[in-house]
């Protein structure tokens, strides 16, 4: 369970987070969606102890991150946006060091490493140096490392950024599997389809504030079911409709230059903030 109350973070005069309130219950896969600079990473950094909060409170499974930092850290695993594995160490050594940092006993470390490397399909690469792995394999290894100490909350900061569609789908499958195993997952992304596919609830974050929070279907249904993107002299314009028939009626009198598609979270974000997520 993640509880955040009036969380603020200031960098000089810049307000990176402006009074965030949030409650993520146990077992939920929750997503923060927003453009770069919205405050997604800052939120995760504060919750995982990498960044100091300016004001407000946050607790992980009841452990306040400021007054009980070590207990709070024991609750969570983190997959940061950038690859931060020790490239000069092997896959196995990276996981072993992580296990030691979280106080795992030798037998437990050995068993968990074997189990996780099988889980992320890296068992044959356990002796490889990390710098010999591809980007996709490093991402999978980072997820395995975050799961090493069996955290009850997993933070994923843009877990598939820079990966091709095929590998991204594979990592989505892995994330779903982790959730099914009982973990609470807090995900940040600026990929619309990622949030739609994975999250049971989504918060739109813009300029450090939550501007909407609901189930993806509810956020999208507010807009309608179908959308038409129309290219004109001023750029792309999107209109949303409740039914396909309504959309067709609209396009009847039009010539070319439009696309009919399903409404997505981007449309909902755009209508609320006036800007695109990606």
């Amino acid at each position, binding site marked *: 369970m993640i509880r955040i109350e009036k969380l603020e973070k200031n960098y000089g005069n810049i307000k990176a987070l402006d009074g965030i309130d949030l409650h993520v219950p146990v077992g939920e896969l929750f997503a923060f969606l927003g453009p770069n600079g919205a405050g997604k990473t800052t939120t995760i950094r504060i919750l995982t102890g*990498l960044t*100091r909060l300016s004001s407000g409170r946050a607790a992980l499974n009841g452990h306040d991150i400021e007054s009980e930092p070590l207990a709070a*850290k024991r609750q969570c695993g*983190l997959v940061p946006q950038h690859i*931060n594995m020790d490239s000069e160490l092997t896959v196995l050594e990276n996981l072993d060091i*992580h296990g030691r*940092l979280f106080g795992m006993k030798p037998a437990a470390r050995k068993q968990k490493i074997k189990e996780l490397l099988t889980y992320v399909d890296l068992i044959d690469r356990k002796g490889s140096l990390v710098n010999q792995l591809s980007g996709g394999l490093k991402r999978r290894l980072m997820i395995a490392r975050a799961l090493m100490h069996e955290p009850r909350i997993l933070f994923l900061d843009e877990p598939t950024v820079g990966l091709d569609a095929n590998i991204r789908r594979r990592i989505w499958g892995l994330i779903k599997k982790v959730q099914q195993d009982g973990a609470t997952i807090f995900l940040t992304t600026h990929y619309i389809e990622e949030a739609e596919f994975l999250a049971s609830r989504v918060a739109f974050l813009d300029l450090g504030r939550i501007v909407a929070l609901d189930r993806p279907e509810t956020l999208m249904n507010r807009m309608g079911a179908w959308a038409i993107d129309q290219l004109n002299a001023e750029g792309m314009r999107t209109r949303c409709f409740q039914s396909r028939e309504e959309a067709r009626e609209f396009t009847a009198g039009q010539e070319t230059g439009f696309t009919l598609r399903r409404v997505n979270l981007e449309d909902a974000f755009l209508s609320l903030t006036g800007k695109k997520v990606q």
Partner: protein
Amino acid sequence: MMQGLIAVYLRELLILKRRLKRQLAGMAISPLLYLIAFGYAMGDAASFNGHTYLEFLIPGLVAMGSMTQAFGIATDINVARFYWHIFEEFQAAPISNAAYVTGEVLAGMTRALLSIGVILVLSLPFGVVLHYGPLFWLAALLNSFVFAALAVALAMLVKSHADQSLLTNFIITPMAFLGGTFFPLERLPEWAQTILWALPLTHASGAIRATAFGQTPGYQAYLILLAIGALFFWFALCSVGRARD
């Protein structure tokens, strides 16, 4: 505390093991050049209190080498912090600042002891016989502790690699040349000696040289090194918390 400390130290040892050949070669270059250029080439042209310049130089190189190698841990910490972002792995782990600092300081001291071994091996072909008793090693250990602790403290405070190089240029390089490494301080004016006795390396090279010459140095040098080391260690503990933005 112990598990975290071991994890931090073990990580550094594994990296050291992987880079061992390069690291040993790097540790050997400067002392070898100093031994050839200042020691061997000068021959008997200079002597100090009945000792040849080579005999005078080798303990100085031990003090200087252990200082630079112990302080070198700062560069590795910075690369891990700014380039590889591995420091975040430690920040997100449930380990105390003391565990992190102790692990890194031990890693710096290990590198320093390795460099002393390299210098002593390099000095063998020059036929210099010195004494390497327990007090010699204690002085070398304390010197390594002082500069490894300083390295961790400063590595946490700098904001970029460039800042780190600047600190090395302003702190380590002057100390390497002026801390009683290459010449006896008595040859300098009194006011300069007063300033140079404030440097920890001066006390370290004095104690290391005295023990290498078979003398028993005053306990003051050891106490001063221990006090400065403890101060830098405390400074490092405070600095780790500040590394959170």
